[in-house]
């Protein structure tokens, strides 16, 4: 077991743990903080995959900017009086829970007990994959089109946000 594997399991454990904590916390501020921890772990996993640039961006954008904004909003709005949407355990929930567990077991079965011939990346090239240069090159050649479509997506999202915000003003 090499260092990378050890790091992966370590980070993975914290990653899953923090995600669970985030979902189960009642206090939104604490939940948001767990989410930040979660993002940091994700960034760490990116690093073990030689994706340095993405790891940095992950921390800067998500953990840094967006989550801080979230925490501020939560604190300012003082959402302590959270209302529960529904409490009772319905038939649907049991079925949903059962299906989720089934899916989890299935996935575990596949990835743990079955040999899968996953395509492996060339180790020498993989060092370069995560660099800014390599990402930039891909982003503006092969993936130029999705990149541009994303900008339209964001524009549409802004218009949508305006609709929601204007509703308050009306």
């Amino acid at each position: 077991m090499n260092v990378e594997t050890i790091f992966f399991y370590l980070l993975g454990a914290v990653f899953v743990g923090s995600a669970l904590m985030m979902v189960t916390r009642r206090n939104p501020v604490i939940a948001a903080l767990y989410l930040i921890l979660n993002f940091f772990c994700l960034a760490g996993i990116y690093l073990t995959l030689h994706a340095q640039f993405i790891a940095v961006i992950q921390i800067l954008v998500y953990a840094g900017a967006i989550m801080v904004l979230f925490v501020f909003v939560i604190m300012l709005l003082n959402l302590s009086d959270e209302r529960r949407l529904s409490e009772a355990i319905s038939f649907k929930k049991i079925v949903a829970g059962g299906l989720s567990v089934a899916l989890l077991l299935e996935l575990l079965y596949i990835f743990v007990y079955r040999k899968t011939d996953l395509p492996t990346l060339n180790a020498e090239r993989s060092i370069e994959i995560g660099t800014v240069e390599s990402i930039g090159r891909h982003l503006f050649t092969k993936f130029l089109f999705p990149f541009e479509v994303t900008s339209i997506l964001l524009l549409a999202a802004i218009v949508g946000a305006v609709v929601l915000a204007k509703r308050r003003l009306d």
Partner: protein
Amino acid sequence: MIEQILHSLSLFLPETTLTVFFCAAIIVGLVAGRTSRASLYVALIGIALATWFAIQQAGSSEGIFTGMVVVDPFATFFKLLIGMSAIVILLFSLYSAEVQSTAHRHIEYGSLLLAMTLGMFLMAGSTNLLMMVLAIELTSLSSYVLAGYTREATDSSEASLKYIIYGAVSTGLMLYGVSILFGLTGATDFYNINRALATGSVNATALLVATIMIVAGFGYKISAVPFHFWTPDVYEGAPVTITAFLSVASKAAGFALMMRFFKTCFIDANALGLPAGMWASLQGFEWNKLLAILSVLTMTLGNLVAVWQNNLKRLLAYSSIAHAGYMLMGVVVLSDKGLAAVLIYFIVYLFMNLGAFYVVMLVANKTGSEDIDTYKGLGYRSPLISVAMVVFFISLAGIPPTAGFIGKLFLFAALLDAKWIWLAVVGALNSVISLYYYVRVVRNMFLRDPERNAEPVVFSAPQVVIVLALLIPTILFGLFYSPIVELANASVVMFGMK
């Protein structure tokens, strides 16, 4: 690289037009003032132009932008379908009391309709997992906002919330499936996935799990059971125009993407010894069995629940779920015949479903209600509109001599040709159930005695013209269906597939 991109751009004219008009709609709306209809007209022109450009592309078959999207007859067909329904929806919107009552938000309405149309155009042509997800996101995002657009926050919160949560969950599941598929094959491009699967070394169980998760994303878009929970609430809460648009265009785009995904990823392009037009699955992966189950569940549940609905929008929502089930039958058979049958069904469905929604909108404009009781005696108060509604419903139920029958006929034909007898029988029985709830509305219109002195309901000339424009094809294509069949036959060709 630059030449390649420039060449791609020339084939990307419809989408470019939509993007330009998307921005134009915002700017024009801001200049023209808050309550102006200018944005709606800009959207109308933009979509009409884009559709026109899409028609110009008929016959070309090429992958553009380094294989991210393709322009082929299949995509062109769906662009035409989506464009046409968007035009009709915009015409509806000009006469919709709901939309006109929120005139100060016309800018957002027009521009988001354009964005949604753009998303659906991209869905029709995507051949890459990345593009697939992006296009679905663009469509969904616009429709979330449009669905909760007119009503005040408290009213539509449940519908919008349900829509977004279900949307997020299914997109998340789909992304997970996409990542597993990428992990298994090392490719995001549909054709490369096909090649990787053709080597036969991919773990079948993992592939199945990934496919089920991706189907969740498609299922959400086409509102197939069990991903349909959002449909009735959203259809009821949204303005009728948007409901109609979701039920036709959004569904069409979802089907287009799904059929392309399954055909280009999982079909053995070099299978030998099959009759023309029949497909073989790679690695013996029988994903169509999965879709068969989905199809039966979808149409049966849609039809059975529709029987109990008293709100016309909800009734049509469940009916549209059922119709998604019928159309899934066409995908199950693994043949070009099945694919063509789905395309034929969509042309027919465009006219009859939009027509039914339009009548619902007109009646709601006059009476302010979509309840089935408001239709009592309508047949005597507004004979033309009611007769049109009867024709649309009869067509939805699939009874000749309407176009809906032709749609069903070709679906059943494809099923029987591939010896899927039991599925055909289930579909046939379902159409009998569906007749019951359609006839409930017809009964209220004609059989329930009108309040004797009720005034006749009069509709303006342009409104009647729109009804006729949808009514005449519904009957005409039932009697002379050569054009739609020929169009569908020519449109099943996908780029890069035999």
